[in-house]
């Protein structure tokens, strides 16, 4: 047996994988060869050192590490189930998204209008004072009159419809309104009004 072979057997021995004849032949070689004896001794000591030292020096992670890890985990879990639901119901998700967007846009339109708006074809005789829109007695408004966010006081004559949105109206005994009188102050009514108004506007254009 040469020394190279012996070295390889030494390692096998340290791996607990040297038995029988091979073990005996290594023993024989070690007794004859002082340099291999030295080599083996060093290897054996290294082995012992490694096991002993590494085991003894116990490094431990900081205690808050478990918390830190657990904090990163549940958040992911929630997100994943949420995503799973979305993936499973694409149509419902789309419908829900559409509803949400519609609701928000409608609400924002409704809320943003708190300025006084007066609409009509013939506004020459209309008197506006603060939030009060007055049609004085004796004067005549040709066509429709719409008042948003204000009070309409009618003393004279309106030849079309009178529409009051988010406000109130007062009709004097002298007033004469040829068309309909409509008062709108609920969100749903308002939306309906918007929709029909859009359609009629489109239709008459």
């Amino acid at each position, binding site marked *: 047996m040469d020394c190279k072979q012996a070295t*390889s057997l030494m*390692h096998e021995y*340290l*791996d607990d*994988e040297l038995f029988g004849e091979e073990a005996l032949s290594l023993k024989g070689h070690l007794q004859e060869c002082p340099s291999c004896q030295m080599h083996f001794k*060093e*290897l054996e*000591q*290294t*082995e012992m*050192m*490694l*096991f002993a*030292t*590494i*085991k*003894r*020096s*116990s*490094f*431990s*992670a*900081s205690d808050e*590490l*478990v918390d*830190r*890890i*657990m904090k*990163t*985990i*549940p958040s*992911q*879990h929630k997100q994943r189930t949420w995503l799973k639901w979305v993936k499973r119901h694409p149509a419902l998700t789309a419908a829900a998204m559409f509803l949400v967007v519609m609701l928000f846009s409608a609400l924002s339109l409704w809320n943003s209008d708190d300025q006084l708006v007066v609409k009509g074809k013939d506004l020459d005789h209309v008197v506006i004072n603060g939030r009060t829109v007055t049609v004085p007695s004796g004067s005549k408004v040709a066509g429709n009159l719409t008042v948003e966010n204000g009070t309409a006081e009618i003393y004279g004559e309106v030849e079309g419809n009178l529409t009051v949105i988010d406000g109130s109206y007062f009709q004097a005994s002298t007033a004469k309104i040829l068309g309909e009188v409509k008062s709108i102050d609920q969100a749903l009514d308002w939306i309906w009004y918007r929709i029909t108004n859009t359609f009629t506007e489109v239709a008459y254009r």
Partner: protein
Amino acid sequence: MVDHFDVRLVKLARQGDQESFADLVDLYKDKIFHLAYRMLSNRHEAEDIVQETFLRVYKNWERYDEKQKFSTWLYRIATNLCIDRLRKRKPNYYLDAEMNDQEGLDGYTLIPGDERTPESEYLLTETQQTIHYAIDGLPAKYKSVIILRYLQELSLSEISDVLDMPVTTVKTRLHRGREFLRKKLQHKVL
């Protein structure tokens, strides 16, 4: 005994039981930390590895084969993460080269002191330090085998499972690593 306990915890954690998962983290965090600390010699990085390992476990439960030991799977994830880190760490720039954007600034100024000295973080004897440095100086492929063998006391076949390589390769690496350490320690502690 311990193994049975393990299997039950793993089963529960796999089904989404948070408490069992926390128990598993608690049970294994120090082992993984020790492994990562030996591989990287840096406390912060080692803690990152622990965190990343458990995150991967959580995300990849479906890939875990219950016939395998949980610890083997765990060590495999952790060692792979460590080896990736070591690979990325390889400097691909020269420290002496001046930075392009700022004058008078070179690579040295970016190094936040030497964090890699173990004695600054733990009280170690001189012998322990010498051994620690010797292990630290091992090339990565020997390092992982040596650490799994001496720190986690895994058998050769377990190491081959963790590192996903044939037992013969594990043996060769272990033998070379052992010789390397012997030479390093020869005149210092033996």
